[in-house]
């Protein structure tokens, strides 16, 4: 589809790059009113003092992206899905409005040559060219104004530089008078031309021949001025006003969707449901991520406000600002704690509300801003003593990059350890300086200042790796010991020790399996010993396998397990105590087994559930056992005393095919049925048995389940996109597609994307481990993937041989 982005700012460039990475099949067009392709607005000051050119601050774009310059969108036709500029019409499938904001001025500046705003490359250019010999008057004291003031002070052009505030503050109203005084002092001391005037404003101006020749303030008169406005910004929504719902900005939901289903708004032009409008690069990029996920039909929880860290490095002081989402400027309960040091020109200003830290503004501060951020995020009550005790703590040095949380000393270590000699060389190790770009110069300086030595670097690396490995191995050992401590019933006892050891014959095949499992869990070969130990423990873990509204596909898959072979699996490695498909006893006999495990191994057994849980008809679409318990009742009873619950297959995950439209039995997944968030999900239709065995092993080894993703799926198995590891991916890249079943491409094993393969939407390791002893998998069989592991959505949206219709990407 064609995605059109209106606006040529940082957000536009970010989205074009992200879309190209995640879904290269779509066309992206950027429509900007500027004469330049997207550039980094953060570095406008560098254009003013001409330390950089517009090319140098240009943002990289994917080669495929089309950019329409000098094109201001005048009108959007939402019916026909087109945007109009003065000279062109562009159709879209999805439209993204990222027009940012427009600067305010105090009076109409049209036709006046010496009054500008400071927002674009053209503004910078104008300032650089026209201020020569003038008395520069900057109206407004926000961060950008302060930065520009700092820049102008380095230039010879201006005769005088005035910074005028209508109020009594600089930077932000919240700043204490001490801080304002300190900043004023520092600025004015740095350059005799600089003067900061508080509580003043323009009361009169004289205009001759399109030029302001004089302005009159309350306190004085300034002749031959050059005016720069920095009095605030407003969302730029002119082009969208008549097409989508707007308030101050364009109204969007958490996924950045506007009132029109095909139009998104992102960045400073967008207004969230609670009225919030983003202002910083980081927030805008997170909004962009939310929008992209929604456009591509991927799951995303949407944009949420978060604690922000901002920094301003001007001249001789460093300002840092941490703001909680709970911060309200005018709140009467706000209290302040200020710690200041004259000798260091340092002020730490804390704003608290009911014992919670809501904001921190520091000048030349040493405090760990990230620690404060965490404090705000956890919403813990603060001990004011902490602030004093930690005011000088700077073990890791200054916070250089707030976006990545990189401290000076950490970066120096990285630079030395990896022999980083230039900015590009740092990329593999750290994104510092690359997110919003504000600190890029500082990072470059740090690299320049840090000498590197390859021999020392190698030594440092080896030392650190050894340390990390030792620490991890210690952790593994500790966990196995802990497991034995916690599960005394499962210890090997002196009476059965000999026999048990014999039953775990360490055959060659077994060793091979251990190696295989170690590798498929992405553990270092050093872990093999631990895996072996875990395997011997595994035999002692009781397992209950319940079948609910299922088709037994996962059990059938399980008995096809080849690593280990299923006979070894059930005779040696696990104690499969209750499994309706395979167990010897029925009826009363099987019920007795179930009762015995629940009572005697309470808290120790693992429950594996296959199938959905029907909730309709009070759960009576499924009844099990002599008392006619419903599936839900049985599940609740067995899950209550389980050490852990694993939901295997897509039905147990979220209802799967049983919950597909119109979900006749009201089926849900195990997690939803139990109302629990700690269910381990192993979706797939059916799940590959290796994913069950590997997950069990991890549990035994570490006494906890492997790292899970947002859907509680083990990352080691679900952290892959089928598409990314597909054997046919090369053909995709070359544009070699099967166009018809059985055609020449099909005979040659070309890419199945055009035949509706949903590999790009599937998070699973099928392409890595395959099925039935590695024999094949659906893509190898020429059919393509239908993302069966994504749960019920697969059966409503993906189980077909058609490419996703574009409207379903939303």
């Amino acid at each position: 589809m064609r995605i059109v982005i209106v606006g040529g700012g940082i957000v536009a460039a970010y989205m074009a790059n992200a879309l190209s990475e995640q879904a290269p099949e779509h066309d992206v067009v950027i429509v900007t009113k500027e004469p330049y392709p997207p550039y980094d607005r953060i570095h406008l000051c560098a254009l003013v003092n001409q330390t950089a050119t517009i090319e140098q601050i240009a943002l990289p774009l994917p080669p495929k992206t089309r950019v329409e310059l000098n094109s201001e969108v005048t009108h959007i036709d939402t019916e026909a899905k087109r945007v109009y500029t003065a000279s062109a019409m562009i159709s879209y499938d999805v439209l993204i409005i990222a027009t940012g904001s427009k600067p305010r001025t105090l009076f109409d500046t049209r036709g006046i040559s010496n009054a500008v705003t400071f927002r674009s490359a053209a503004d910078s250019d104008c300032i650089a060219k026209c201020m020569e010999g003038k008395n520069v008057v900057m109206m407004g004291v926000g961060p950008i104004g302060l930065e520009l003031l700092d820049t102008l002070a380095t230039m010879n052009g201006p005769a005088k530089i005035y910074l005028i505030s209508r109020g009594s503050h600089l930077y932000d109203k919240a700043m204490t008078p001490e801080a304002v005084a300190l900043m004023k002092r520092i600025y004015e001391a740095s350059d005799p031309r600089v003067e900061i005037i508080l509580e003043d404003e323009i009361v009169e101006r004289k205009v001759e021949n399109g030029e302001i020749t004089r302005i009159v303030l309350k306190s004085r008169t300034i002749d031959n001025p050059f005016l720069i406005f920095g009095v605030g910004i407003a969302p730029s929504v002119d082009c969208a006003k008549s097409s989508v719902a707007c308030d101050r900005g364009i109204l969007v939901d958490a996924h950045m969707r506007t009132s029109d289903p095909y139009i998104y708004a992102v960045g400073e032009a967008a207004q969230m449901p609670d009225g919030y409008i983003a202002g910083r690069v980081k927030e805008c990029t997170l909004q962009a991520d939310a929008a992209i996920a929604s456009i591509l039909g991927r799951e995303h929880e949407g944009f949420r406000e978060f604690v922000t860290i901002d920094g301003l490095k001007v001249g001789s002081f460093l300002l840092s600002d941490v703001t909680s989402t709970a911060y309200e400027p005018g709140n009467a309960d706000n209290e302040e704690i200020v710690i200041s040091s004259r000798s260091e020109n340092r002020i730490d200003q804390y704003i608290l509300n009911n014992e919670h830290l809501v904001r921190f503004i520091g000048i030349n501060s040493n405090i760990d801003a990230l620690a404060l951020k965490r404090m705000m995020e956890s919403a813990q009550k603060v001990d004011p003593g902490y602030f004093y005790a930690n005011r000088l703590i700077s073990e890791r040095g200054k916070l250089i990059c707030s976006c990545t949380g990189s401290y000076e000393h950490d970066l120096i270590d990285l630079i030395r350890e990896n022999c980083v000699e230039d900015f590009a060389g740092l990329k593999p190790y750290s994104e510092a300086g690359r997110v919003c770009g504000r600190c890029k110069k500082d990072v470059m300086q740090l690299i320049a200042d840090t000498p590197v030595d390859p021999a020392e670097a190698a030594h440092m690396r080896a030392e650190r790796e050894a340390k990390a490995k030792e620490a991890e191995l210690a952790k593994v050992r500790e966990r196995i010991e802990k497991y034995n401590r916690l599960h005394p019933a499962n210890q090997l006892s002196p009476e059965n020790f000999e026999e048990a050891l014999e039953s775990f014959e360490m055959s060659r095949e077994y060793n091979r399996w251990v190696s295989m499992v170690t590798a498929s869990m992405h553990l270092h070969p050093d872990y093999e010993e631990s895996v072996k130990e875990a395997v011997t423990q595994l035999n002692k873990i009781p397992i209950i396998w319940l079948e609910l509204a299922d088709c037994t596909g996962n059990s059938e898959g399980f008995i096809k397990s080849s690593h280990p072979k299923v006979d070894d699996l059930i005779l040696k490695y696990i104690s499969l105590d209750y499994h309706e498909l395979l167990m010897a006893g029925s009826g009363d006999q099987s019920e007795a087994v179930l009762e015995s495990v629940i009572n005697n191994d309470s808290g120790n057994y693992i429950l594996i559930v296959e199938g959905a849980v029907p909730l309709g008809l009070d759960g009576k679409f499924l009844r099990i056992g002599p008392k006619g318990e419903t599936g839900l009742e049985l599940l609740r009873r067995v899950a209550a005393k389980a050490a852990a619950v694993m939901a295997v297959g897509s039905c147990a995950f979220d209802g799967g095919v049983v919950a597909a439209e119109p979900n006749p039995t009201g089926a849900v997944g195990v997690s939803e049925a139990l109302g629990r968030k700690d269910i381990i999900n192993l979706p797939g239709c059916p799940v590959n048995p290796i994913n069950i065995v590997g997950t069990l092993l991890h549990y035994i080894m570490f006494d906890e389940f492997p790292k899970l993703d947002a859907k509680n799926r083990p990352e080691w198995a679900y952290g892959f996109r089928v598409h990314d590891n597909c054997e046919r991916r090369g053909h995709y890249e070359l544009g070699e597609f099967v166009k018809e079943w059985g055609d020449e491409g099909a005979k040659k094993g070309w890419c199945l994307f055009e035949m509706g393969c949903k590999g790009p939407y599937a998070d699973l390791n099928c392409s890595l481990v395959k099925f039935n002893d590695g024999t094949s998998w659906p893509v190898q069989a020429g059919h393509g993937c239908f993302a069966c592991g994504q749960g019920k959505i697969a059966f409503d949206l993906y189980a077909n041989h058609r490419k996703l219709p574009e409207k379903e990407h939303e």
Partner: protein
Amino acid sequence: MNNLKKIVIDPITRIEGHLRIEVEIDENNVVREAWASGQLFRGIETILKGRDPRDAGLIAQRICGVCTNVHYRASISAVEDAYGITIPSNAEIVRNLVTLSLFVQDHIVHYYHLHSLDFVDITAALKADCKMASVESEQWSEHPYRNSLDHLESVQEKLSNFVKAGRLGLFANGYWGHAAYRLTPEQNLIHMNHYLEALRVQREISAAIAIFAGKTPHPQNLVVGGVTSVADILNPQRLNDFMFIIKDVRDFVERAYIPDLKMIVSAYRESIKAGEGRASGNFMCCGGYRFGKDSLLFESGVIHGHNFDEVASFDPSKITEEASRSWYENDAPLSPYEGDTTPFYTDLNPDGTLKSEGKYSWVKAPRYDGDVMEVGPLARMIVGYVKQSPTIRPYVERFMDSAKMELIDFSTSVGRNAARAVEAQICCDYLFDMMSDLIENIKYYDEETWTKYVFESLPKEARGAGIFEVPRGVLSHFVRIEDARIANYQAVVPTTWNASPKDARNVRGAYEEALIGITLADPSAPLEVLRAIHSFDPCLACAVHVIDTKGRELSHYKIMNSCSL
């Protein structure tokens, strides 16, 4: 009648799905009445409604994860039938290779892993004399499967270690030591040896299925018009791999599965002669699976009341379904196409037992010309034998001769397993014939695997059926298409036939009938009931999904002649 005692067995384990059996026994522990009840309803057919007909296969496949590819195939075939699409020969052959491999896989898993523990006492195997067991094997086969003394000793040791190590896992609380077990310790050991070997064999044949089907369970290789795995079909190494696996599997079937059944027939002859597990003797087959020059693997036909002198031809329009004892609204016997089957759940009794006088199952009661029918390997072997099928009769005769059986003996709990084993042997052999057909095609440059059609120009209204013999019996899927969408979908599956509840005339289903007259040695451990039920190879997820068909015009369904399949 007052001293009848009720026994509830739920869950019936070692089957696919959620089945409950209730029986009433008299003072001599003889079963006088029985009820079979499906305890799960999912409504897959409702889910299929309104979808693109080309997508039905991937959803219908999920009806069952055990006989997983047959629903996939029947569904796709029903849509092809509706549109009048004939698939290329290669596609037909590959579909057959996959389906018949499933027969073998399914029969092996069913017998060894789901059923044999009803005949085999694992604990007794520990007492076996391995040397004697090795010699005994020679009695059942000229070339017994893995019967060396060393191997049998290692199997016994493995089992013994497992038992001594503490937890018995799947084998905990079995019916060990039950009076109804008949094998000697040595025979038990031979069986347990094959139980473990069969786990490997079923895994290997699954890999053979995956060669052409991508994976199993739930293969992914079919589309309306053909198959997708053309690259595998044209790859000589893949064809070779497939044949070598089948060769190994055939080896197992001939040297282990068939001899084991001969042993079981001999040891349980008393039970066979008592007719334990015999149902009403009505058998129904739709036949199918062409190969070579017009040869047919299975015959179609209907036999009534064990009358082996007469085989009526099979006519699908004589099928009705009724719900007088099932949890659906309309009680009257109707053509399945006319059935109005909205769920109407009347619950269990307060003590959790079935309401034995009222509705008691999610399974409906299908009838053929008003009669209850049994479907499956037993029906296929008997109909094939009686109709002098050249593919079936020689195998059945050979088995009867060496096991000293009469034809009627197959119609018992033990006999059903013998029929199933013979069928597995037949499938293995004829898989090679079908593979030869495929190789012949490729040899003469026929590489077609898909019949081209333009979906948009296919009729918007159509109807069709896919009717197949599948491991458990006759499977039929019906689809009606309106406005290029599925307007109605219906599957009548083998277990619906066998697990049928009673009908309005109180005639029992096959499971129920098979239980009548069985004597229980120990009513608290009803092993004999399990034996009878398991002999049918129940698959309940398949059986219970029939819902809400409003297609009153469905009697116009053009049912494909089963022989053409």
